[in-house]
């Protein structure tokens, strides 16, 4: 009776209309349509595209991050464009061309600052998340890579040309930049572990991986996997592996071998190699399926029409999928029930059931690359 009364009252109040028109963003996502400079708005629950947002410039290698309320996406374009997209009005609400050439970005833990990693001119620029007004400009002696957010309004990054890693603290009135030292030759990407304990930096110009203990009072690079990396005899690398997907499964890191068709498994505590998995091609993304022992892997051209699923307990491939041509990215439903896979050359997003491996849906998209669900808003390191 009581609830009936409430319903009657609500239907007469202005809140009723508000509730009907309200649109939650928690199961939405955006797909980068790299060739057309557009984004496709996805509804994860409905397996549907809701609309297209245009005018974002050169979106090759574009990535994005979300505001804490999951309403706004900050899109980092190759052409130096930083765009703020409103998921509700489906429009670009702010945009700045902040550099000639950029590679990625991150949002601060409090959601107030957006940092962008630039190639030309090299450096990191930090913007007010509300207005996209410039807050700080940190030049670098080269191309900056591996930008990640750290707790306490801080960001970490590394410089391809000089091999140094940095932490920038933007919590005070003036930024405080700390040089953490040389991690090695040509760091190509870096990632922070999910507990924000370790900054892992992959090297292209020499063997080994660098780990920096961010919980230490004076963090310093430490090399491990001294035999990891490319040698003259290795196979050509037709696409740089990405490390944001470095999976952290079963007490291990999983790394893409560079110039080898292998995954490398490393004990998380001792940083000693625990195994290798021969796979279909040069791994690009290795992404952990949430709430499971599995990681999913895609590959560099020309072997990029396959996705493999690997068990982190046995290090064995348990499934090989052929979703379509030029598989560029994979994104899991936050609780792991589905894998969403982009096929650039089939112009489609494919949705797989992670339990049965059945394809549940196919959504048309124009040359899709990265898929980004709004749940990323709550993931540290992005």
């Amino acid at each position, binding site marked *: 009776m009581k609830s009936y009364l409430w319903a009657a009252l609500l239907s007469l109040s202005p809140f009723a209309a508000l509730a009907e028109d309200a649109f939650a963003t928690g199961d939405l996502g955006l797909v980068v349509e*790299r*060739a*057309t*400079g557009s984004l496709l708005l996805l509804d994860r629950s409905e397996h549907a595209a809701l609309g297209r947002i245009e005018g974002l410039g*050169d*979106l*090759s*290698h574009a990535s994005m991050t979300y505001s804490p309320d999951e309403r706004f996406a900050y899109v980092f374009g*190759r*052409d130096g464009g930083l765009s703020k997209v409103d998921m509700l009005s489906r429009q670009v609400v702010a945009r700045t061309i902040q550099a*000639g*050439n950029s*590679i990625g970005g991150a949002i601060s833990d409090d959601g107030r600052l957006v940092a962008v990693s630039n*190639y*030309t001119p090299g450096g990191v620029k930090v913007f007010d998340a509300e207005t996209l007004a410039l807050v700080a400009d940190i030049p670098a002696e080269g*191309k900056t890579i591996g930008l990640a957010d750290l707790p306490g309004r801080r960001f970490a990054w590394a410089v*391809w040309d000089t091999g140094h890693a940095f932490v920038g603290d933007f919590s005070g009135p003036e930024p405080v930049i700390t040089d953490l030292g040389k991690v090695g030759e*040509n760091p*190509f990407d870096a990632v922070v572990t999910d507990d924000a304990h370790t900054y892992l930096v992959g090297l*292209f*110009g020499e063997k080994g991986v660098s780990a920096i203990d961010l919980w230490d009072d004076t963090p310093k690079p430490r090399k491990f996997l001294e035999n990891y990396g490319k040698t003259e005899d290795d196979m*050509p*690398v*037709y*696409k*740089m592996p990405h490390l944001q997907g470095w999976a952290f499964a079963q007490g291990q890191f999983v790394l893409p071998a560079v110039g080898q068709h292998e995954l490398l498994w490393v004990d998380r505590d001792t940083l000693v190699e625990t195994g290798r998995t021969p796979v279909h091609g040069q791994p690009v993304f290795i992404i952990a399926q949430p709430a499971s022992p599995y990681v999913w892997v895609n590959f560099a*051209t*020309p072997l990029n029409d396959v996705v493999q699923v690997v068990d982190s307990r046995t290090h064995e491939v348990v499934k090989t999928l052929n979703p379509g041509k*030029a598989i560029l990215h994979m994104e899991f439903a936050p609780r792991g029930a589905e894998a969403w896979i982009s096929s*650039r*050359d089939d112009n489609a997003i494919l949705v797989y059931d992670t339990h049965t491996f059945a394809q549940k849906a196919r959504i048309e998209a124009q*040359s899709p690359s990265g898929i980004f669900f709004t749940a990323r808003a709550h993931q540290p390191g992005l």
Partner: protein
Amino acid sequence: MPDGVIPLGLVIVLALCAGAVRAEVASARAAELEHMVIQDCGSCHGLTLKGGLGAPLTREALDGADPETLQAIILDGVPGTAMPPWRPLLSEPEARWIADYLLEVK
């Protein structure tokens, strides 16, 4: 939207391209190569070839470079950099087609 205009422009320019280039690479393969330049080379050099981890490859940036030098770089890569050798995936005429394409079209 310049992105939307480019492909039509390319079709016209390719149709006017030197006979020697077209003679060496069949038109279906040429379309694949163009796709490869934009999408796969674009991964490092940018979809509009203005550069990224790799150097810019626009016509202005290349500024009349020797096509045979470009062909050699495409086939054998640049040691000590991230530019891989594409010889396992491309024939010599195909690499030359890409070199000419970069110099004449992009």
